[in-house]
């Protein structure tokens, strides 16, 4: 096991809207080693983005952390004051957002947006910051970087914008990069370029990453470990290599079944029936129970915390055996497990 970089413990996040309070993240814990990449998958609205934003304290208006710790390099980020938190943001932890169109300031040269971090954290002069921005732009593969420095986001393609975003996040050589669905908004071919760029940058800088996505294919390409999130809770955790071929939670199995696989011809995707429960007033028992094909009576009551099963793996399902058997019987997932 590598050195521990980040440890999230029993994190809880609430999001207050006009009339109701959404429990967006409930009692989530996980660890991340230095140089490692963790993938967090789950459906839209499961709380994975809130989890990521809570780490940096960038929750949207109405959001607040109600419990837990985020221990980064031995310090609980949640206990920091504003100034200390700003020192971490951008300097030690960078972040990439889903929509490069809206995540960049439309009225500011992209180069200046990149240079802001180094100027704020590394004591760069304006000129040095610009120099650094041009270097970064070249590093993230933006051709003609010197000229593009003065471009506005609206003058760049989606892929170029995301490269700018990456340059911003990596500008101060942080130890951790938080990626919130960085490729979701991009064309498939561009997605691949961006993922390869991130892998390449990780190799050269050794940065750790948390990769929030709903795409298991991306996870298998990018990540060493995987956390599956359902209805504000973690339901499965483990190494990608062990979880994907051998899921121990029915929701993970459902996600795997919904993945198109072009190697093995599969006539139809199997979407998970039903919809996730409301997070305003979540039901008792296992939250996946109403949609679960293996649900038993004992799933209806009690708490379902992550249970550690074997080395580095955990699942909240109390009927894991049923799930594993079903996975093994599946021609696609089973064949993967056989590899």
């Amino acid at each position, binding site marked *: 096991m590598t050195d521990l970089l980040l440890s999230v413990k029993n994190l809880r996040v609430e999001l207050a809207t006009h009339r109701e309070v959404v429990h967006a993240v409930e009692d989530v814990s996980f660890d991340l080693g230095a140089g490692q990449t963790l993938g967090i998958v789950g459906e839209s609205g499961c709380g994975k983005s809130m989890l990521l934003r809570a780490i940096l304290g960038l929750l*949207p208006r109405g959001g607040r952390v109600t419990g837990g710790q985020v221990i980064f390099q031995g310090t609980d980020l949640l206990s920091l004051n504003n100034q200390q938190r700003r020192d971490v*943001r951008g300097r030690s932890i960078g972040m990439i957002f889903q929509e490069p169109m809206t*995540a960049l300031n439309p009225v500011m040269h992209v180069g200046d947006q990149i240079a802001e971090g180094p100027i704020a954290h590394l004591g760069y002069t304006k000129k040095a910051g610009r120099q650094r921005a041009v270097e970064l732009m070249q590093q993230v593969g933006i051709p003609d970087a010197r000229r593009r420095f003065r471009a506005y986001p609206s003058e760049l393609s989606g892929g170029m914008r995301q490269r700018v975003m990456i340059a911003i996040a990596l500008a101060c050589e942080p130890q951790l990069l938080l990626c919130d669905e960085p490729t979701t908004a991009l064309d498939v071919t561009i997605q691949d370029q961006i993922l390869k760029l991130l892998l390449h940058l990780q190799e050269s800088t050794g940065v750790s990453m948390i990769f929030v996505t709903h795409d298991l294919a991306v996870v298998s390409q990018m990540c060493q470990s995987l956390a599956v999130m359902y209805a504000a809770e973690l339901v499965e955790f483990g190494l990608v290599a062990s979880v994907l071929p051998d899921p121990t939670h029915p929701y993970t199995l459902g996600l795997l079944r919904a993945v198109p696989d072009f190697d093995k011809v599969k006539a139809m995707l199997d979407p998970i029936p039903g919809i996730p429960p409301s997070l305003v007033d979540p039901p008792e028992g296992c939250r996946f129970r109403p949609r679960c094909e293996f649900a038993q009576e004992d799933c209806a009551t009690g708490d379902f915390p992550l249970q550690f099963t074997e080395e580095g793996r955990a699942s909240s399902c109390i009927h894991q055996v049923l799930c594993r058997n079903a996975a093994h019987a599946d021609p696609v997932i089973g064949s993967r497990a056989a590899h």
Partner: protein
Amino acid sequence: MTRGMYIRRRLLLMLPTAFGVTLVTFLMIHLIPGDPAVTMLGVRATPKAVAALHREWGLNKPLYEQYWLFLTRVVRGNFGVSLFYNSSATGIILSASLVSLSLIVYAVVLSVVIAVPLAVLAATHRNGISDQAVRAIPLIGMGMPSAWIAIMLILLMGLKFHLFPVAGLQPGVLGHLDSLFLPGLTLSLGIAPLLVRSLRSSLIDAFDADYVTTARSKGIHEYRVLIRHAIRNALASSLNILGLQIAFLISGTLVVETVFALPGVGALMVNSIYRRDFPVVQGVTFVLALAVILTNLGTDVVHSLLDPRVRFE
């Protein structure tokens, strides 16, 4: 289209508009009764004297000829001779325009100075007491006539505390700044409420925008997030409101100019209409039309400078 080409084209397009406005004014003022010769000569003027004055002024010529004369003069930057003051209309209009221009610039600067901090206060304390206050108080201000505000300001800041001159225009740059403060403030109190409301909602939009989250994720100071990211975007979207307000001010400074005894275009226009001082009326109309058009153009250009997404078509 580049910005330069766009500006050139707009400038060319504005000439027909400005002349159109002067043509309408020209016809209107000549078609209503009233004779400038009576203004000059008094009621006892003999018909002979009136006719002589008409000849001297060219008022005996057909209307189309008079308008043509006006056009050919304007092209050379000459508005003719004021019938009332018997001196260059261009000079009279120019000096009045300078007063009004300074007044409007002052008002705009003051309204921005007033509106930006209030909007920031309201937007950063959304739905709090300061937000409610900032949203409610200007509404009261908007309901008050500017003449009343002007007199209240004079009573308070001119008479009670002797901070500023009560009225009139003091000579020199400092004198102008001093004596235009209260009128500028009066006008700005008329614009600021709309500007505050518009800026506040743009700022709230900006604060919720992804790019502000991005900016915060960089760990830069909140102050810089506000200034460089939020306000600049909010200003870009509130600029059109400001532009409309300025255009409105250009034609609406009369009341303030009257109360503060400022020799601006508003007073000049009204007086000249009453005196049937045709060259001045036409000249002022032309200048006002140009000013409104230039303000719109300026708003567009500044908007494009603030927001690179604006395209010229």
